[in-house]
């Protein structure tokens, strides 16, 4: 738990959370972003457009969803930070499976919720969210719970492969 007061932990978490937020923002207009990034446009245009789209976080998302998205981004950043830390510190094949699986799940859960609407649309279920509680916002709250649980377990001592047997690391 000492890691929670580590500046490196928070810097990494905030960086990853920012990347997550920007990615989610761009996902709403992924066709525009793709066309812009890979299109024959001046660099200035590309930069200005991508920068302006970030402002959509404030204008194109309801406040409640924006707050939930920010919390999800921070929890995802924290989960990924701990994943990276654990993978670097415990170079055991068995550990990779345990740590990676839970973190990928939680990250995907976060992505799936935050951008659930585009994903639902791609799956042809674009209208389905209308019948979800709070119009789909409940998905965000569910993901926050999942990520918080994942974070709790990520903060616990990881398993170690000791002499071919996976044990809890008591250190």
């Amino acid at each position, binding site marked *: 738990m000492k890691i929670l007061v580590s500046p490196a932990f928070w810097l990494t978490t905030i960086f990853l959370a920012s990347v997550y937020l920007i990615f989610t923002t761009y996902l*709403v*207009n992924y*066709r*525009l972003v793709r*066309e812009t990034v890979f299109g024959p*446009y001046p660099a200035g*245009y590309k930069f*200005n*457009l991508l920068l*302006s*789209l970030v*402002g*959509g976080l*404030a*204008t*194109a*998302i*309801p*406040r*409640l*969803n924006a707050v939930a998205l920010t919390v999800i981004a921070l929890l995802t950043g924290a989960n990924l930070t701990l994943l990276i830390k654990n993978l670097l510190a415990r170079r055991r094949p068995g550990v990779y499976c345990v740590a990676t699986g839970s973190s990928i799940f939680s990250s995907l859960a976060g992505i799936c919720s935050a951008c659930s*609407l*585009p994903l639902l*649309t791609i799956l042809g279920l*674009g*209208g389905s*969210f*209308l019948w979800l509680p*709070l*119009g789909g916002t409940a998905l965000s709250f569910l993901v926050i719970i999942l990520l918080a649980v994942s974070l709790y377990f990520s903060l616990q001592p990881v398993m170690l492969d000791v002499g071919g047997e996976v044990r809890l690391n008591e250190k």
Partner: protein
Amino acid sequence: MLLGARMGSSYPQRNRPVEPVVTGAASQDNKAAASTPQKKPQVSPANGDKSTDIMGKTEDAVLGRAEARVTITEFGDFQCPFCGRFFREVEPGLRKDYIETGKAKFVFKHLAFLGQESIDAANASLCAKEQGKFWEYHDKLYQNQMGENQGAFAQPVLRRFASELGLTSSQFNNCLDSQKYAAQVQADTTEIESQGYYSTPTTFVNGTVIVGAQPYATFKTVIDEKLASLP
């Protein structure tokens, strides 16, 4: 979105002063211009409410010069709070910087998916268009948003709006009661959904799609690029 952009939260309604409307409508608008201060319409004689743009059809509502080479097409729902935000925060800039200067024209099409009042409001707007008052009615609807299917766009309210704008009541009421433009509203909705977009506002700028109530800077960047790339 999408259906996202639908987000059901309510937002503080900021009263936007009714700005002079530059309209491509026909002569009926000139009667209204006599009673309310308006900018002189900048239209070509053949414009009216017609569009020959690739994104528009002759029955679409068009604001600005028909010959403008950049077309901004918004698919919106009159009950959608984000369309309301687009109306309050983006449209004024678009009108001032591009439409009134003749650089672009603005087309409004319907993606009425938030319930019966959305469909009724869309129908009503086209009934107003019959009498050359589409944009006034469009502005009136967005200025009076109040939740979804809570009565803000109930039929009596829609009739009252028409009366306040000086529309011929009998013609408007007949149009509304007969759901005269239901097919056109549905056609607009089908058109946008067939392209894989299900949210409002979705805006096309000469084929480039911007989803959601993005900041004005996003629209400005795209429009300026389109203008710069024109031969």
